[in-house]
């Protein structure tokens, strides 16, 4: 069989027209019936086929033969070589890919990645969690927290509630530690660090001073974050999904990347909302378990919501509009969930 094409000698920019004669074991390249070179089929590297591109022969001395017909495929190629090309040209494969890719992406980002995150977080040694919690806490303390101005008696009261909860749920007091801080940036709020330190702001303690059960609900919510290792999981998940998206869509540019980034942010916010729900349901279950009412939790959310709303009505309007962007479920959803 004769195949027209170009022969490129090794490491040279020169080339010449040639004809490849194929037999069972040999490829002979000739020009005007003059033999240029001959190669055993075993000494040839084949590249996998690509639509619209010539199927070149790479000889093991570095020279190449490229057929003129871009659609020509060598007879000694095995099916394995052209499997991808056949897939990429098959209408059915393409249709299946269009339908199933979003589904698999969703499975990957929302099922596989979180599962991996949970698994890897469980294997993290306690000392590592302790270190990272303490370091992040030091940073937050420097940036956003001021020394508490809460009277000692009031602090003691909250501390006692906290101790009771720990005691009744048999949680380790060396892990779950309570601190008080005044904070302008957080306002009335509470948050938990990954290693178990829980911070209650003066503003929150004052807001719920006459609703001790509501305050307990808030503490339980924060304990729930620590029990489920939410901060660690969050980092693991967002890192893993960033990698998945970057690897799969890596060579997109411009607007596509922006769209991808937005998608990743939405996904992350989704994780965060799920975690808030998980902490909420932890609080609700434990409230019940400890003999309180889940209404206490609803009261806490309501108080927090009105505290934050009254601060600035205009901003609240914008917040309503951008509610879906927020990292927490809506206050109403959380209240309804508690009251049902």
């Amino acid at each position, binding site marked *: 069989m004769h195949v027209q094409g170009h022969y490129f000698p090794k490491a040279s*920019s020169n080339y010449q027209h040639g004809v490849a004669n194929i037999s069972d074991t040999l490829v002979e390249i000739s020009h005007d019936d003059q033999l240029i070179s001959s190669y055993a089929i075993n000494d040839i590297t084949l590249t996998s086929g*690509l639509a619209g591109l010539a199927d070149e022969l790479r000889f093991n001395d570095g020279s190449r033969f490229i057929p003129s017909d871009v659609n020509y495929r060598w007879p000694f190629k095995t099916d394995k070589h052209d499997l991808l090309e056949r897939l990429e040209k098959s209408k059915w*494969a393409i249709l299946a*890919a269009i339908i199933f890719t979003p589904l698999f992406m969703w499975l990957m980002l929302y099922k596989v990645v979180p599962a991996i995150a949970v698994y890897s977080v469980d294997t993290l040694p306690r000392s590592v969690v302790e270190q990272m919690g303490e*370091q992040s806490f030091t940073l937050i303390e420097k940036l956003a927290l001021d020394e508490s101005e809460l009277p000692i008696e009031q602090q003691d009261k909250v501390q006692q509630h906290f101790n009771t909860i720990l005691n009744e749920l048999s949680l380790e007091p060396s892990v779950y530690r309570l601190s008080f801080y005044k904070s302008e940036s957080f306002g009335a709020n509470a948050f938990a660090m990954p290693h178990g330190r829980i911070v209650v702001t003066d503003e929150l303690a004052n807001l719920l001073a006459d609703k001790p059960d509501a305050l307990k609900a808030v503490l339980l919510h924060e304990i729930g974050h620590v029990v489920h290792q939410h901060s660690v999981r969050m980092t693991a998940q967002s890192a893993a999904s960033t990698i998945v998206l970057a690897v799969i869509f890596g060579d997109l540019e*411009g607007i596509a990347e922006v769209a991808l980034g937005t998608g990743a942010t939405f996904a992350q916010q989704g994780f965060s909302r799920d975690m808030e729900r998980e902490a909420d349901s932890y609080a609700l279950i434990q409230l019940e378990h400890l003999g309180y009412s889940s209404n206490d939790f609803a009261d806490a959310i309501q108080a927090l919501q009105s505290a934050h709303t009254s601060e600035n009505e205009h901003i609240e309007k914008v917040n309503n509009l951008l509610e879906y962007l927020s990292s927490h479920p809506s206050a109403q959803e959380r209240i309804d969930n508690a009251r049902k």
Partner: protein
Amino acid sequence: MESIHPTPPETSPPANEQATPIFSGKVQFSGKGGEFFGIWIVNILLSVLTLGIYSAWAKVRTMRYFYGHTRVDGHSFDYLATPMQILKGRILAVIVFLIYTFGSSFFPIIGLLFAVAFIFLMPWIINQGLRFNMRMTRHRNVRFSFKGNYGEAFVNFILLPIASIFTLYLLMPYVLKRIDSYIHSNISYGDTPLTVNLKGETYYLTALICFVVSSITMVIFMAILGLFGLDLLNVENQQNMQDPAAMTLMFGALMVAYVFMIAIVTAVWAAAIRNHIFDNSQFEDVASFKSQLRPIPFAILLLTNMLAIVFSLGLAYPWTKVRTSKMLAEVTTVNIYPSALNLVDTAQQEQSSFAEEAANVFDIDLSLT
């Protein structure tokens, strides 16, 4: 009546006159949107199914498709990287990324040290990436190469950009010129180095034009908003505007204006700088280039690309990629001179030497993309 047309200037020949080219013509791009769509969507499906491992094969197929369909003087480019090289690089990059993410979010103080270490690692990574991409590019059995050194990369990519912050970014066009010069003047085709002669004035002029264009776009946009009674600079007006529908409309309009401006500025910069670099770079006695990318058609292309991607939920991406390559090929002319036929591929000749073998161990693509 006096003529209002000035006499056309003599087309002056280039300063260093070269031999007559044996080939002079446009770059050809023969890729088709439909063909690449099949490759792209199958790539994504297989990448997802293999938890990202196939993405290395996907990258090689994509690169081979675009290189193979780009022809100069009838001969296509080859992308030589193997999936394994890409995969190794990706695994390494993922590990570094994980260390960095976990380091900085779990141990913010150690994270800071990582960030500093990363600054010193950056020039090496950039060089590595450029070197890899050049070595893996071949035209007519001769490979390209890149010979940058750490010190220069550190000055151009780290030191000067940081310094420009302290000059209110007035130094930035000069820094960008230095970066482009560094990248291009270290490229060789076989044993022939690329000689480049970039001018700072062009960068400053282009930056000025970009600044003016973006200002004008913003002013026009503000005026249009004003027509609809939305005065962004008027605080009272802002407070009156609490109705969510108006807010959404305004956010939407702002986004559109922003995207519009980005596309125009990108096109103006890309066109001017690309043309400048191509017109002032040559492989002496081997090849010279000319680029005639025009900003307005390019801006329209970028904008329609964005719209197509957004409204097709991403499915138009292969089409946008192919038409962009087509436009860039169409505006690029290459002249090839007789010496191009006797080039020697230095990279391939040295292949047996130990140093080259050792270098091959590090021949991995470090970028995630």
